[in-house]
């Protein structure tokens, strides 16, 4: 894979939103990493957690993952961009 164009940096609101919520949800907040890149004008956020915390992020019937994506979309809309969340296992 070629190195994607990086965006946002430490102060990115998109990353901040996902990190804030996910760290509160999991048992191992220190194992949470979120990387941000831009592909075709869309910010792509890749989320990784400790393997045991994956279920908490997804939730029953994927409800928590859906909620995360909704809040990410609202944040992106607020900042005039579009974003996508990839949960990596």
């Amino acid at each position: 894979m070629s190195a994607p164009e990086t965006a946002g940096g430490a102060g990115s609101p998109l990353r901040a939103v996902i990190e804030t919520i996910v760290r509160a949800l999991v048992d191992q907040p220190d194992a949470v990493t979120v990387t941000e890149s831009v592909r075709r004008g869309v910010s792509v956020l890749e989320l990784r957690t400790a393997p045991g915390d994956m279920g908490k992020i997804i939730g029953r019937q994927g409800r928590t993952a859906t909620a995360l994506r909704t809040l990410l979309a609202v944040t992106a809309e607020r900042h005039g961009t579009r974003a996508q969340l990839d949960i990596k296992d």
Partner: protein
Amino acid sequence: MALTTEIAGFVQQVVTAMGLALTTTIEEGPDGTCVNLEGEDGGVLVRRGGEGLQALQHVVATTFRRQLGEDTRITVDCNGFRKDKDAELRQMARHMAEKAKTSGMPQEMGPLNPYERRIVHLAIAEDPGATSESIGDAVMKTVIISTK
């Protein structure tokens, strides 16, 4: 209570991270704790039927579920959006109960999410002549309102 302060702090942290200038207040009601968000930036949360607000509430409830316990309910509102919507839902439920009584036919409402169904069931429970039940097996279910 220290926990409600912690919850309000978390909600404030999330909306601030989202870039929204909103102030958080806590309201202890008979139906549990309500975190109120106020401010002009609330518009993006209540758009598309309050999708963002619902997502925020789900995240807050999931995060604090263990500390809250089963019978403590937490809701997140923004500029009175949920309060107005809940009142509308109650009114609709009562209207459907009347319609079920006059027509003799069961009336359908929904599909509704668990939070909305609870409001409908509670409104119908106050009516001695009507009864309600949920059908379906997903998160969203239809509520059937019929005469007793």
